[in-house]
């Protein structure tokens, strides 16, 4: 079983890298589309098989080595990454067909887009199965390099602004996280653990309680604060609404539904490994603090009328906050809620982003997605699910997190979470009723793009 898992993990990361190289060599846009679609199916298959094995292996990790750690948490993220990555690759031709311009010529831009997309996907697949903190950091940094150019793919001024902000702010955040990793490395060396293996997840778990407390706290706080910039937690979230709204829709889906929870998984692994040294209370306070701040910062924007993708971006801020609060509560119910939330949010959010893709009309113009019945329905389903209206899985997950919080004794934080969730719910339902059901002039259907770009032959 372990050998099979190793082979599948190699394929899961290796195949998208191979696809990145192959699509780079494509000579025509059509060739790039065909290679992209085929490679996406080929990549998703081993990823989903590995996810199934990890999820059905019981409480023990499927693989627990120096380079690879495949446990149930990896399984959830691999499944989400496989499904959303596949969907994004499959809908990409629809985006590229109508993308008016990019930094490059039409032929080059197709090849380039797929290469960057598959490189990004490969890095996203590798993060949840990496068995070492420092290697995981390298992989997260690689996701920034691969995705920053995709964010500004359209080449427009606003997209450039979003991409540049994303690149600089997340890289700075990751520098702070790297500093935290080095601090932990120094503390490990002081306890007699040297070299790369000192930063393996299981080595950290076994040594955390023997590290000097002040040092491990410094390292932990630096790591979590640094990762917060990449997760998009408030108050270091400035890049998030811009990047998610300006990126091509398939990339926005990957950013919101996969990248943010994947980095969140690493923050959780750090918490899990170092909490014995840091103290459960302090670790929980940091997570709950970031979580509540993110939900509260997002709420005013959920009430505000704004372009569709920007609304979804602020909803991502809210949902990453909810997940952080759940991880902070850390009771079995809350963790179960986090798992349901990661999966439900991924499906609902990606559906929302794909619904913003325009549909080519018969006269070669491009219809705004909201003007298309199926897309308007998809937007409605996405909004209702994200708001957490029953029977949305996000209703179940939020309920589990809240009940889990009470069970863990975080009454005040839990009450604040409930009030914030209610306000967020009302904000999104307000957007649903005003802009999707009533379809008011200037509503979401007509406000596809943050820059107000007309949808005649061009798209977000």
């Amino acid at each position, binding site marked *: 079983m372990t050998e099979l898992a190793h082979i599948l993990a190699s394929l899961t990361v290796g195949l998208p890298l191979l696809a990145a190289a192959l699509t780079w060599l494509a000579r025509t846009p059509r060739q790039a589309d065909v290679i992209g679609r085929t490679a996406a199916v080929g990549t998703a298959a081993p990823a989903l098989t590995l996810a199934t094995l990890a999820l059905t292996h019981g409480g023990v990790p499927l693989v627990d080595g120096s380079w690879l750690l495949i446990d149930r948490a990896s399984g959830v993220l691999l499944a989400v990454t496989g499904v959303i990555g596949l969907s994004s690759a499959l809908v990409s031709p629809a985006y590229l067909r109508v993308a008016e311009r990019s*930094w490059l010529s039409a032929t080059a831009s197709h090849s380039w887009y797929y290469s960057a997309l598959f490189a990004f996907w490969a890095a996203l697949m590798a993060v949840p199965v990496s068995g070492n903190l*420092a*290697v995981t*950091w*390298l992989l997260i*940094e*690689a996701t*920034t*390099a691969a995705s*920053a*150019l995709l964010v*500004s793919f359209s*080449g427009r*001024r*606003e997209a*450039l*602004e*979003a*991409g*540049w902000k994303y*690149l*600089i702010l997340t*890289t*700075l955040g990751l*520098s*702070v996280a*790297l*500093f935290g*990793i*080095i*601090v932990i*490395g*120094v*503390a*490990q*060396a*002081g306890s007699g653990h*040297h*070299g*790369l293996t*000192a*930063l393996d997840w299981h080595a950290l778990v076994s040594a955390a309680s023997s590290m000097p407390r*002040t*040092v491990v706290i*410094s390292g932990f706080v630096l790591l979590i604060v640094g990762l917060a910039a990449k997760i998009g937690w408030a108050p270091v979230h400035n890049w998030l*609404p*811009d990047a998610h*709204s*300006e990126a091509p829709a398939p990339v926005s889906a990957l950013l919101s539904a996969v990248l943010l929870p994947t980095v969140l998984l690493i923050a959780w692994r750090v918490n899990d490994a170092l909490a014995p040294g840091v103290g459960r209370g302090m670790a929980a306070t940091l997570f709950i603090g970031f979580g509540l701040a993110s939900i509260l910062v997002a709420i005013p*924007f959920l009430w*505000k009328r*704004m372009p569709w993708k*920007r609304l979804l971006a602020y909803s991502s801020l809210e949902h990453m906050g909810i997940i952080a609060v759940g991880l902070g509560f850390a009771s079995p119910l809350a963790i179960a809620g986090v798992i349901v939330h990661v999966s439900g949010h991924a499906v609902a959010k990606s559906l929302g982003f794909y619904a913003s893709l325009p549909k080519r009309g018969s006269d070669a113009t491009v219809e705004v997605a909201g003007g298309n019945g199926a897309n308007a329905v998809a937007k409605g389903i996405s909004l209702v699910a994200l708001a957490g209206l029953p029977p949305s899985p996000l209703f179940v997950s939020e309920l589990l997190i809240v009940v889990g919080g009470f069970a863990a004794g975080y009454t005040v934080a839990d009450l604040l979470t409930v009030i914030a969730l209610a306000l967020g719910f009302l904000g999104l339902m307000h957007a649903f009723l005003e802009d999707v059901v009533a379809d008011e002039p200037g509503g979401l259907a007509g406000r596809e793009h*943050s*820059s107000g770009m007309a949808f005649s032959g061009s798209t977000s």
Partner: protein
Amino acid sequence: MSSVIVTVILGLGLALTLVRRRSVGIALITAQSLTLSIGAFTLTGGRSAAFLVASIVLAFKTVALPLLLRALQRRTPEPRLVPAARGPLSRLAAASALALLAAAAIPPISHTGGYIEHAAIALVLIGITVVATRRPALHQLLGLIVAENGCSLLAVAVPGGLAYLIELGALFDLVLIVTVAAAFVQQIHLVLGTGNTELLRGLRD
């Protein structure tokens, strides 16, 4: 690593907050990376062969990044100096205050390297200040490199800092990020005619 070398590295980082010319900024970063690399080589005697590899990696950074930055500077000529958002003294004061605050807040990490540790965290914060207070895209990129040099200083100067494989990976990632950022700087110049990021402020809620 001697305290003189560490002071020079810190001083070069602070000097970056003062300069406006991109060529001078690149020269300061080159000098800082070179000093860091010399400092690492002075420590190789008492360390393992793996540490020697880490030092060679740092030396490579001293050569590769300035070459990349020089090429970028040549490709993106600025007709005139980008107006500064704040005066040089206020930038220096902000960077120094943040650096001192961080040095006071971070407890000793190891038994040996108190000054090095404080200098390293100070460099990370100086890098963040440069990014926050400078308008030219290339200067913001230099701020990133200062922050990374802060991490490298801690990694090489304090025993047990970072394995050479990770140093190698971090260098690869940094070169990748700088290359992507260079592509951005070029495109920003193409669209705006300048590298002034103050003009990239269209996205507001």
